[in-house]
């Protein structure tokens, strides 16, 4: 009873018990609760964040990994010929050159990106890289049909005559547009890793050689323009002539006196040297410079060599004679074509250009139209009456001149017997030229002559150029300038 009585008493009357032991059983301390709440909060924030992170990082269930940023193909403008044929096309990573060897040394090629951000490694791919990288197409003045013909005939001639290298350039008269610039030895820019340095060099714009007798018409034109020569004069042409310590010989037999056109037709060294004595050294030097010999030929969009012409005050007498016949200075095929374009353009020098829409320097007058016309008539006479008949094109008059130059070996320090640079420079139709062409073969095998090797090459190229026009113009006989 005492127990029940005792239990009947309310707890309030019981002796106070410490609160803490009761609370320990069911509750945690505020500090522990705060800690738990903090962890709960952290988990609530972190877990969904991790889920979101995983979601953004990868759409698959797996460890969160960031994929590489997508790489767009690097855009690169195409290089296109004037007739719409792609010469270089495709993105930088997959560039292709549809014409393969044709125009390869001119167009160049791309490779891996360079430290300066360029992809272009050679040729126009290098020099026009900023424009091409911006995705802009570049339209060249090149005519793909003429370019292909130039490359094809140059290659065939170089192989046939065992030439070490060669070049061919075709320029449109009146505008200076470069229609073709071929180079030998060729290479395929689609497999440029297999090519050597010589193949990659644009022989037409970069390599310069002593041109030989193709310079003679330039000297004649200078004499005519200076009033130091009349076209109907007879010139003394001995078989040999001695100037300073050097004897110059004529290659072919001819009369002791020749007309001026025949001096060119027989390519008489003695006749030319006799005539050029009417020039002082400085005058001859000045006329060679006016025709661009030893001068820069700035072609917007690409690189060119300027060749070499010694200053006249360093000349010795035999240098004057050598310069008259195209030795002792050097030119590129492009320079020679630009010089001959003065005859074709009625005396105007029209700077050559390669990229449509890019203006070159202003044309300037070098010869009077009358002298230019006379020179075309003389050069037509050369083609019609000398061994250069192989360069004629049926139905079209051709005005051209051959050149055979000795080759100086820098390592040996002398001219090497048997090594020649053969060339032909000319234009057609002679009475009103539409194109100027220059072909060159460097160090052909023994026995090759400029008339046979480069003359035939010029004729084949000229024939294909006329074929590309789609019609054969009826050439009229040039009026005599006598």
């Amino acid at each position, binding site marked *: 009873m005492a127990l029940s009585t005792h239990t009947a008493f309310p707890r309030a009357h019981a002796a106070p018990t410490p609160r803490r032991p009761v609370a320990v059983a069911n509750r945690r301390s*505020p500090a522990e609760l705060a800690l738990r709440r903090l962890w709960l909060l952290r988990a*609530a*924030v972190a877990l*969904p*964040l991790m*889920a*979101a*992170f*995983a*979601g*953004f*990082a*990868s*759409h698959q269930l797996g460890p969160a990994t960031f*994929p590489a940023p*997508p*790489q*767009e*193909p690097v855009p690169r403008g195409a290089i296109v010929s004037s007739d719409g*044929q*792609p010469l270089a*096309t*495709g*993105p930088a*990573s*997959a*560039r*292709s*050159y*549809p*014409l*393969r*060897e*044709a125009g390869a040394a001119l167009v160049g090629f791309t490779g891996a990106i360079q430290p300066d951000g360029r992809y272009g490694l050679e040729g126009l791919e290098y020099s026009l890289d900023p424009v091409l990288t911006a995705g802009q197409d570049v339209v060249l003045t090149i005519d*793909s*049909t003429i*370019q*292909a*013909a130039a*490359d*094809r005939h140059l290659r065939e001639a170089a192989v046939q005559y065992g030439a070490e290298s060669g070049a061919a350039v075709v320029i449109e008269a009146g505008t200076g547009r470069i229609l073709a610039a071929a180079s030998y030895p060729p290479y395929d820019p*689609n497999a440029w890793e297999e090519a050597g340095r010589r193949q990659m060099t644009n022989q037409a714009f970069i390599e310069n050689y002593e041109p030989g007798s193709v310079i003679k018409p330039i000297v004649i034109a200078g004499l005519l323009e200076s009033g130091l020569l009349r076209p109907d004069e007879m010139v003394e042409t001995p078989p040999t002539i001695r100037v300073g310590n050097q004897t110059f010989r004529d290659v072919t037999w001819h009369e002791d006196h020749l007309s001026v056109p025949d001096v060119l037709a027989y390519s008489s060294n003695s006749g030319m040297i006799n005539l050029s004595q009417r020039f002082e050294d400085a005058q001859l030097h000045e006329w060679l410079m006016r025709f661009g010999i030893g001068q820069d030929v700035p072609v917007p969009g690409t690189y060119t060599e300027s060749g070499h012409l010694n200053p006249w005050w360093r000349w010795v007498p035999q240098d004057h004679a050598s310069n008259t016949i195209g030795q002792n200075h050097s030119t590129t095929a492009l320079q020679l074509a630009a010089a001959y374009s003065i005859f074709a353009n009625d005396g105007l020098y029209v700077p050559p250009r390669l990229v449509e829409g890019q203006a070159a320097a202003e044309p300037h007058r070098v010869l009077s139209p009358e002298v230019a016309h006379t020179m075309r008539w003389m050069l037509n006479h050369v083609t019609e009456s000398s061994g250069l008949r192989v360069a004629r*094109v*049926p*139905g*079209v008059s051709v005005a051209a001149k051959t050149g055979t130059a000795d080759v100086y070996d820098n390592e040996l320090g002398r001219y090497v017997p048997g090594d020649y640079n053969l060339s032909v420079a000319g234009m057609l139709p002679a009475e009103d030229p539409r194109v100027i062409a220059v072909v060159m073969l460097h160090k052909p095998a023994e026995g090759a002559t400029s008339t046979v090797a480069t003359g035939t090459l010029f004729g084949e190229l000229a*024939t*294909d150029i*006329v*074929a590309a026009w*789609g*019609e*054969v113009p009826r050439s009229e006989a040039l009026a005599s300038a006598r």
Partner: protein
Amino acid sequence: MTDLAFRPAEARGGDAPTERSMGGLFRLALPLYLVLLLAAAYVGVANQALRARQVGLIADKTNLLASVARAELRAAAVEGPLAVAEWAESAGMVPLPQGHVVAVAAPEPAPTFAVPEPELELRTVWR
């Protein structure tokens, strides 16, 4: 330090309603936060799927541009000016300016005759 959790409500004075609203807000905010984060995760997954598709399309574009470049290479091997000129020459064609000066003299190659074995009898190729 006073433990507010164990103080009577009246003892907490003006803090009591704020505490309740804060607690309610917390209880609502957390699920809302979780839902939003899950939504963000979903958007992330969708974004990654689109990104993967973009990468695939760019790869396709690269391959197509490369194949176009290769196709132009193959086309030029057939209809390029160099190929056409070589084909025309192999087919016996001549450039236009030579059209009126070239005559077809022997469309077929000249026949070859076996040289007769030497013997006593005199032979000629015309017999």
